[in-house]
């Protein structure tokens, strides 16, 4: 079996009592050392980026000031940032669960795309007489189901043919993103629109707002629920325990009679369902229509979020919020100070590298 490396810094306990398990759950990811290292990585990334801002002839203090105002400056900005964080958190929880079992699912992007397509089909094709709550529930379920199926497709090739899951999920990302364009080209496209997009959803297909007067929709509640449920699943259930054993050692898992194939398929389906749900939330909550390329880049961001969170579903919540607010802030930075918003990728990339180094070193230190 391939061993993609020390992604899971802490080995699963051999015989967990519920109490020891809970303690471990709080420690992992929430542990002072991990938290400190992650914080250090973020600060280091921000410092290096400040150098780049200087290089671009702008004042980093002014730029970061604009970033903060852009993220937190008003109720609208907060709503924007929270909406942005939502798909990252929901998808990130699934990624964290997969990575815990050392199933490197980087297919979030394609799974989100498929979820968006399925939800859009339901909303646009359903009879107009359907009450809004029922329509939305159906749309979200369809999104989750489509995402799960897309993930299972990759899982199938991975399990049955032993093709590395990174490649399966990655290749399906490209196909998924293209499928969005394809359905907009033919069955769902809006005629005469300058941009490949579907017609606007009927009102009943819009995700309800959370705070009147802002764009904030109820998606963030789904995100909180996903993080909490993911935490419970990972640390309080037999399945979560199986995932952790699988991640710690596949031979050991096989030795105790644990079916790696079944657990892998199940965790991929869960991650895919979450990503698909995120796709449904994105189309009906933010755009109110299907848009070409709407999921582009989400998959990698979800990986970044899961990593920054130390693969701990509960910690995915702050990590996803961090990234969402960072992106909202850098967009404002571009508007106000003229610093290119591509800096957000620089910060993300640097942060990921530093966090990975910190995790890698930590794993090594524990071994000695």
């Amino acid at each position, binding site marked *: 079996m391939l061993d*993609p490396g020390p992604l899971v810094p802490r080995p699963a306990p051999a015989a967990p009592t519920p109490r020891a398990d809970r303690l471990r759950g709080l420690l992992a990811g929430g542990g002072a050392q991990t938290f400190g290292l992650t914080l250090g990585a973020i600060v280091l990334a921000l410092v290096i980026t400040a150098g780049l801002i200087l*290089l671009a002839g702008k004042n980093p203090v002014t730029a970061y000031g604009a970033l903060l105002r852009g993220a937190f400056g008003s109720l609208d900005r907060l709503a924007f940032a929270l909406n942005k964080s939502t798909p990252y958190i929901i998808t990130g929880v699934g990624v964290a669960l997969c990575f815990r079992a050392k199933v490197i699912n980087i297919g979030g992007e394609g799974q989100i795309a498929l979820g968006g397509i399925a939800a859009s089909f339901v909303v646009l094709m359903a009879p107009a007489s359907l009450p809004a709550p029922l329509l939305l529930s159906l749309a979200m379920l369809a999104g989750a189901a489509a995402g799960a199926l897309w993930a299972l497709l990759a899982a199938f090739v991975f399990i049955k043919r032993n093709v590395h899951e990174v490649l*399966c999920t990655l*290749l399906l990302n490209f196909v998924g993103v*293209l499928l969005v364009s394809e359905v907009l080209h033919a069955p769902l496209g809006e005629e005469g629109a300058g941009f490949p997009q579907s017609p606007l959803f009927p009102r009943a297909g819009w995700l309800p707002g959370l705070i009147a007067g802002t764009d904030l929709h109820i998606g963030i509640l789904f995100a909180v629920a996903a993080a909490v449920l993911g935490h419970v699943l990972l640390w309080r259930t037999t399945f979560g325990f199986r995932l952790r054993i699988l991640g710690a050692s596949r031979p050991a898992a096989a030795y105790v009679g644990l079916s790696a194939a079944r657990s892998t398929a199940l965790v991929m389906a869960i991650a895919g369902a979450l990503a698909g749900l995120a796709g449904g939330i994105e189309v009906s909550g933010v755009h109110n229509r299907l848009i070409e390329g709407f999921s582009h880049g989400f998959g990698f961001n979800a990986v970044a979020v899961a990593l920054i969170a130390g693969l701990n579903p509960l910690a995915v919540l702050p990590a996803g919020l961090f990234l969402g607010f960072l992106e909202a802030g850098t967009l404002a930075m571009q508007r106000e100070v003229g610093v*290119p918003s591509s800096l957000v990728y*620089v910060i993300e*990339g640097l942060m990921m590298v530093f966090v990975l180094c910190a995790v890698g070193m930590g794993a*090594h230190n524990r071994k000695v």
Partner: protein
Amino acid sequence: MDLATLAELLSATLRISTPLLFAAMGGLISERAGTFAVGIEGMMLAGAFGGALAALLTGSSAAGLVASLFAGMALALVVALATTRFRADQMVTGLAVNILALGLTSFLLRGLFGGRTPVIRLPTLPAWPVPLLGDIPLLGPVLFRQPPLVYLGFLLVVPVALYLAKTKSGLMLRAVGENPEAAFAVGTDPQRVRTLAILAGGAFAGLGGAVLSLQEVGTFTDGMTNGRGFIALAAIIVGRWNPFGAMAGCLLFGAVAALESRIQGWGLPVSSYVVQMVPYLVALGLLAGIGRSSKMPGAIGAPFLRH
């Protein structure tokens, strides 16, 4: 299909395969030494940017090529440090440097030239027809009237294959990829070998990016590699970590891409999006078909720990 159309299609296949081929050779060296080459997408992008920038500043394509090589290596150095020194996860480090490359190139493009979407215009490398050989019917236009990097790319496969198969250093590189402990026991420093292999991989991938910016397109645009690094990665696996196999994989993906851009012209009732999916589906199908018999280097992905 007449002969001229066929020649044109085959010629395009070689041209489109070339950037993939450079990246695949680079990735192959890195993977045979035991490091996943997920970062080649970013290294290609860095190479495309470095090449375009240097060519613009100096007015020389040769300088552009050298710069692309170093740009690819610069990003490879990040991967090498993170994975060998700090034992960071190889796969995710690769993804991280891809994001980093996307951000840095886009940022520097705007930072250096100002404006929202600055445009670099470069002359593309012209075809270098080989005298006499270029006049052979069908074969001539396909094989011997290509721009320079096409020749270089396909010629490169031979020394890479020879190096891996026949030289002592190549043997050690493979040993590090299969069993770093054993290589260490006979006096090789696996971390050093891996670092050098990753750097070489970055140099090749950087050149692959230069093929795009200096030879094919004549400009740099954000994210212009557009997944080609990942396709190269699939070609390595389809080719079972063998240079000639990887070359065959690149040619296959090149052929599909060449067909894609022509299918519309032939009036076939297939949408361009569906055609664009084909390379990815072909890659997935091939991988699934080859399945378990894949010959992935034994120690790939595992950090080497000195005890």
